[in-house]
């Protein structure tokens, strides 16, 4: 976020005395802080409820500060009928693999679109971007049939393969690689490096921050993905956390809200930690399409 606040964009600015600007300042901050309440309350409720005893977690009136902390709701998850531990592990594996593979394919393609000229490059890139516009439900039926034909239904590959490439990732990395000066890469070529070495030894190391950003975004999106596992996974042991938590809520209903909230908290926690640490990067990466327009 740049430090260029537009005080003149605000009503009450312009040819106004300082007090009017001060009032505006406090009022606007007040409104924004007020808006924080509906943003935080659901997550707060979730966290607090996850620590209440299961039998009374959904009682009214709601208590916002739990009297005792029932961490056993969390450990109970791993001993319940629903194999949360397996779901957790599956999610970690799938998200990890997808992230690594997507980084590889996107960086290669992004670099090529940025610095290697080949016939139809520009149009191919734009064509690929159109895949970002179509809802997944348009292509899911043939995708399922392909996986079925390959005997990959109910395997993790059915989820990993479609997510191995990403037009969004290519877009981000192409943006980044375009900021590398042509001369830098040409200097390497003159020194005898071929295209692969130039990419791998020179360009790619410089892309580390962008790769980290894209990696976080990809991991988070794959971690949260509900639809693809829903379509492709049938057996309990293969399922991922989103599927698992949702079926948990179907199994327990309103009977044990604390357990369900513990599951949700467990699923959200890694994302929260990463977000608190890498906030700027993540936001910059996700919103980078907007500023160029």
């Amino acid at each position, binding site marked *: 976020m740049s430090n260029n*606040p537009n005080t003149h964009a*605000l009503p009450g600015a312009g040819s106004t005395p300082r007090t009017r600007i001060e009032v505006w300042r406090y009022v606007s901050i007040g409104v924004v802080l007020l808006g924080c309440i509906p943003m935080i309350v659901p997550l707060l409720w979730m966290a607090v409820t996850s620590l209440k005893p299961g039998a009374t977690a959904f009682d009214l009136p709601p208590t916002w500060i739990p009297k005792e902390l029932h961490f056993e709701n969390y450990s109970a998850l791993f001993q319940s009928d629903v194999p949360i531990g397996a779901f957790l592990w599956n999610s970690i594996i799938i998200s990890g693999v997808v992230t690594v593979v997507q980084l590889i394919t996107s960086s290669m393609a992004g670099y*090529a679109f940025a610095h290697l000229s080949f016939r139809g490059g520009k149009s191919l890139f734009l064509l690929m971007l159109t895949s970002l516009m*179509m*809802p997944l439900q348009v292509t*899911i039926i043939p995708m399922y049939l*392909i996986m079925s034909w390959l005997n990959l239904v109910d395997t993790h590959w059915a989820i990993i393969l479609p997510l191995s490439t990403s037009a969004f990732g290519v877009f981000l990395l192409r943006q980044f690689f375009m900021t590398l000066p042509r001369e830098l890469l040409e200097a390497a070529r003159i020194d005898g490096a071929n295209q692969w070495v130039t990419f791998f030894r020179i360009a790619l190391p410089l892309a580390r921050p962008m790769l980290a950003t894209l990696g976080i975004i990809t991991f988070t999106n794959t971690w949260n993905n509900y639809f693809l596992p829903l379509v492709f996974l049938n057996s309990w042991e293969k399922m991922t956390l989103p599927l698992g938590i949702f079926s948990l809520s179907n199994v327990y209903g309103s009977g044990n809200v604390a357990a369900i909230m513990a599951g949700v908290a467990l*699923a959200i926690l890694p994302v929260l930690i990463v977000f608190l640490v890498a906030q700027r990067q993540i936001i910059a990466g996700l919103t980078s399409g907007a*500023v160029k327009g």
Partner: protein
Amino acid sequence: MKKLNKESLYGLLFISPTLLGFLVFFLGPIFAVLFLSLTRYDMFSAPESAGFANYAKLFTDSQLHKVYRNTFFFGAAAITLNVSLGLFLAILVNQRLPAFLRYLLRTVYFFPVLVGMIYAATVWKFLFNRDLGVINYYLHYIGIGPISWLTSSQFALWSIIFVYVWKNVGFTMLTTLAGLQSIPQDIYEAAAIDGARPFAMLRKITIPLLSPVILFNVVITLINTMQEFDSIVALTNGGPGNASRTVSLYIYEKAFRGLDMGYASAIAVTLFFVIALLTALQFSLSRRWVHYT
């Protein structure tokens, strides 16, 4: 000059994984759905030709019409709320703020964007509970009777819209804020010297200069709402009746529950054309109201 040199060879090599993914999981399936929509296929026996029977069914399927109405309503409402709230919040936040406040606001508003929708919706499902949810509990104190947020046809779709906006307003807020901060101060100063009033400045300067970002947010929100799936499954499962069923859910149900792949493909084809049309419409309209600098 032929570009089939070493560079272009490397170029094609570098993009080949992404290109393969694009062909197998996007372009191929697009054509495949067209083909499938002309068949009757239930996955157990081989697909049999059905001519245009599926397309004829589109006209008589009143469920489909209701589903599309819901989808358009959801999209329109979500876009309007998401973009305007984002703009509103961005304007309020666009001032010199102490670092901790900026960090706090970014965290509180943007974190929901990263929370998996299935988890967010699971939490909101309990908050919206008619008899035991905290929302109705507090509304009771200001005299508003218990509202059936998820089980009345009046409110079901609105609840889904609300959850979507709750989750995504942080994104539009931050993209709009970035746009605001890229507007140079001097424009406002010059306008102020010419005697422009603050709200006129908003209308004549800020919004036109923000129009690329606004377009971006409209497009992103449109794409997201057209494929929104997780929240509907978690909150209402399309009910009551068809009150909150959208096209994405309908395609999934027809294909994977009803095993009517041919008809589901026909619906998918209509969704494809609807999206293509809306996108083209947006971009041609954008030439009129979007100002690029």
